[in-house]
């Protein structure tokens, strides 16, 4: 099966016009030494029916959980049906980056609305039209803070998602920045350690709220210490939590980023996801990526364009604020559709229901012998010390179709029996009780 409309007859006509006797003649610029004179070794082409069967076979070799208690950066929230319906409109999904605004007002207005929604969520002034994912958005934010302050040191709490720390490290390794880790105490950042480490050369601190352990950090306290030395605060936040928790703009964050996947995107084995990014007005010209702005057309009618493009790689080349070009536009569309459907009250409800169910789960697990490791308040994730090997716990749960929490030992050697559980609004009391019952049976 191919998707080529031209027939052999068309082909001959076209060849005549270009005055070539064969198609091969068109490839004569390729030196013979590197011409591939054999067929690529690939499986034979499939007709559509066989292809669908083949893909179904692959899909059958994937087992999704009947109840997921795993989070750690990817969250199983309920997605209203209309979200997928809208992002399946091919006017949206088969279009390119809106370089020609007259033919792209749909994408552009939707991105303007997305930016507005992200500003509302984070309580910051401006937002861009998306980055790849939470980790890469955080890395770009760290770089942005370093460039804005002209300082070299970046403080990275150990309570930040281990993969995010690695992404930041990989992105910034080549730019001469100094990355300094800050230990946690009782599952949150030790403020005294910040006091010790923050100095005149500190560009920013990367605060995750709630942090990787699900615990709530003392964001206001941290913000105060960081700003005292002229450094910036970068907040990496769970967007659903902002239905309930104080937004970054209110505790003084200069840049807010996060993983937008909870806003209407499927788990999808880790991608595509959505990095969102917002900042204060004074940093707007340092933002990476696309930004949509409102303007007027020749007749004075309101319309939208990509704007402030002098920040970007296609204009500034090596002096651009970032190299990003393609982003996660369709995922950003999903997010703004999700936020519109769920709405002002709904977002708070999703957050509150997740909070309640997570606390119910934590206390139920505590009753059967699991122990909460950290005392700090938490949102919808929490760390439990398991009385038996976490790997074993998950094996038993899996037999019942339940995806258990994340064993933390491989990320934190000091926490060998710890498990990070996540409970979203989607988990029912019945599912939670089943989780607890199964575990009770093996203790």
């Amino acid at each position, binding site marked *: *099966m*191919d*998707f080529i409309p031209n027939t052999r007859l068309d082909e001959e006509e*076209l060849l005549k016009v270009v005055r070539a006797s064969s198609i091969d003649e068109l490839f004569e*610029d390729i030196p013979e030494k*590197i011409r591939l004179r054999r067929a*690529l*070794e690939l499986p034979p082409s499939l007709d559509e029916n066989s292809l669908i069967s083949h893909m179904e076979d692959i*899909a059958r070799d*994937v*087992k*999704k959980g009947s109840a997921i208690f795993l989070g750690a*950066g990817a969250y199983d929230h309920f997605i*209203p049906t209309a979200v*997928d319906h809208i992002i399946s*409109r091919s*006017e949206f999904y*088969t*279009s390119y*980056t*809106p370089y*020609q605004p*007259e033919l792209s*007002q749909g*994408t552009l*207005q939707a991105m303007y*609305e997305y930016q507005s929604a992200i500003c509302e969520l984070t*309580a910051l002034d401006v*937002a861009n039209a998306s980055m*790849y*994912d939470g980790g890469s958005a955080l890395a770009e934010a760290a770089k942005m803070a370093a460039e804005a302050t002209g300082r070299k040191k970046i403080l990275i709490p150990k309570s930040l998602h281990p*993969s995010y720390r690695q992404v930041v490290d*990989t992105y910034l390794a*080549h730019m001469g920045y100094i990355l300094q880790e800050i230990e946690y105490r009782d599952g949150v950042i030790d403020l005294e350690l910040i006091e010790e480490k923050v100095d005149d050369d500190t560009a920013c601190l990367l605060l995750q709220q709630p942090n990787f352990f699900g615990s709530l950090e003392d964001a206001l306290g941290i913000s105060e210490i960081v700003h005292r030395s002229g450094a910036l605060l970068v907040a990496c936040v769970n967007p659903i939590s902002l239905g309930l928790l104080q937004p970054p703009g209110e505790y003084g964050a200069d840049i807010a980023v996060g993983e937008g996947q909870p806003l209407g995107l*499927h*788990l*999808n*084995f*880790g*991608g*595509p996801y959505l990095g969102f990014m917002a900042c204060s007005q004074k940093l*707007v010209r340092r933002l990476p990526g696309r*930004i949509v702005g409102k303007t007027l057309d020749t007749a004075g*009618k309101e319309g*939208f*364009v990509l704007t*402030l*493009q002098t920040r970007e*790689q296609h204009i500034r080349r090596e002096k651009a604020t970032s190299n*990003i070009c*393609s*982003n*996660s536009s369709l995922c950003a569309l999903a997010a703004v559709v999700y936020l519109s*459907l769920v709405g002002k*009250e*709904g977002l708070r409800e999703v957050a509150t229901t997740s909070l309640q169910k997570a606390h*119910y789960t934590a206390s139920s697990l505590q009753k059967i012998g699991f122990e909460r490791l950290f005392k700090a308040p938490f949102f919808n994730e929490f760390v439990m010390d398991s009385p038996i090997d976490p790997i074993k716990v998950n094996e038993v749960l899996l037999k019942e179709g339940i*995806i258990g929490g*994340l064993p933390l030992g491989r990320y934190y050697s000091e926490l060998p029996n710890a498990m990070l559980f996540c409970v979203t*609004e989607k988990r029912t009391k019945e599912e939670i009780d089943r989780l607890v019952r199964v575990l009770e049976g093996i203790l």
Partner: protein
Amino acid sequence: MRQPFIFELSSPGRRGASLPPCDVPEEKISDLIPEAMLRKSPPRLPEVSEVDAVRHFTRLSRKNYGVDIGFYPLGSCTMKYNPKVSERAASFQSFLDIHPYQDEETVQGALGLMYDLGKYLCEIAGVDDITFQPAAGAHGELTGLAMIKAYHSHRGDDRKKVLIPDSAHGTNPASAALCGYEVVKVPSNERGGVDIQALRDLTDNSIAALMLTNPNTLGLFEEDILEIAEIVHGNGGLLYYDGANANAILGFARPGDMGFDVVHFNLHKTFSTPHGGGGPGAGPVGVKKNLAPFLPAPTVEKKDGKYYLDDDRPLTIGKVSTFYGNFNVLVKAYTYIRALGAEGLKRVAEISVLNANYCMERLEEYYLLPYERRCMHEFVISANKQKRNGVKALDIAKRLMDFGFHPPTIYFPLIVQEALMIEPTETESKETLDAFIEAMINIAKEAEETPEEVLEAPHTTPLGRLDETLAARKPDLRWIPNE
């Protein structure tokens, strides 16, 4: 007609989603979270019904132009038709609902798909190993250059510069800068290729790599690629292949055989996954054996018939994505490759090159062709001829909209004045190409006879030309309610 903002459609108390209820015993929120950590006032999100939201976004969609509506010859973007069967496979519930940290035993199908896709792409590129973490082409460049940097420094060889031709995509220099490299521009020769003598003069042992798109952004194959590779390798440098234009060479030549050490593909271009209005894409990066130890972790491996994620990579550059890359996009690319097979992929190259040459041949009489050579999958013409009557590339682009086409890429590559870069792709019929050619010829005539028709275009879109200067001078980047 103006579509109001979704925020303006709000009516207090209206809801568009039915949410899972709280069926556990509830506690007082302030007993769980200290007051000071709670939000004082809710975000001003819309309050609309489902039908309000669906109509709003459907109406917006109708103000968009996509490949499913018509011809989209945006040069270097490979806007080919996106097969629906790929969309179908990617929407299987079991692909959508798997968590990246699930037990490997439960995701064998997904890991197997990545493993096999990796093998196919390595075969197509002529390289040995691959990573799927990069989410886009530029992300792939960053990843590839970071590996190149790690490779050199592992050998105790501290190299400071990256060579980039003046015809390159803007992401190339931006990615090199992000990796801490100094960018050195290589001029093009009169045939549109790399100026070999200049390359020789610029290359010494401070060069970490040369980044090259082949065919280049003029749609021309670098005839001297073997000599180029020899010069760079001879000085201990490496070659990076920007795969934006790989559509032209599928099954005809492999970057690995040309001497490239690192290769990225844009799955959203060459392998027909949709662009989504700007993303998500996928930019997997393949490498030759000597660079494999530096690949981001984890990689997907196979042992005793089982697939697994290999995190034990002591020399890895680290991670560029939180998880394993854009899996759902990979499903679509895999489906595409299985649909076409080796023969189908080669035919992609054949017809994309034939279609481009056909359009170029027929337009040559009306527009300035800066390089008189056969092209590969795309070609660049200049509006310099029309400029004499005041008609610029931008005006031609806008006028094309009135004929029902998306314009080509304009003002790129930078080395051609008033450039129009046209990439028809293989998924367009002769009839479509002819209609586009007719429109272009018409516009060339209008530029002579009634230039104001072109200068005032577009006439048929919902909005006329938009004031980009105003947008940049007085940035209005978000909706704010009228208090």
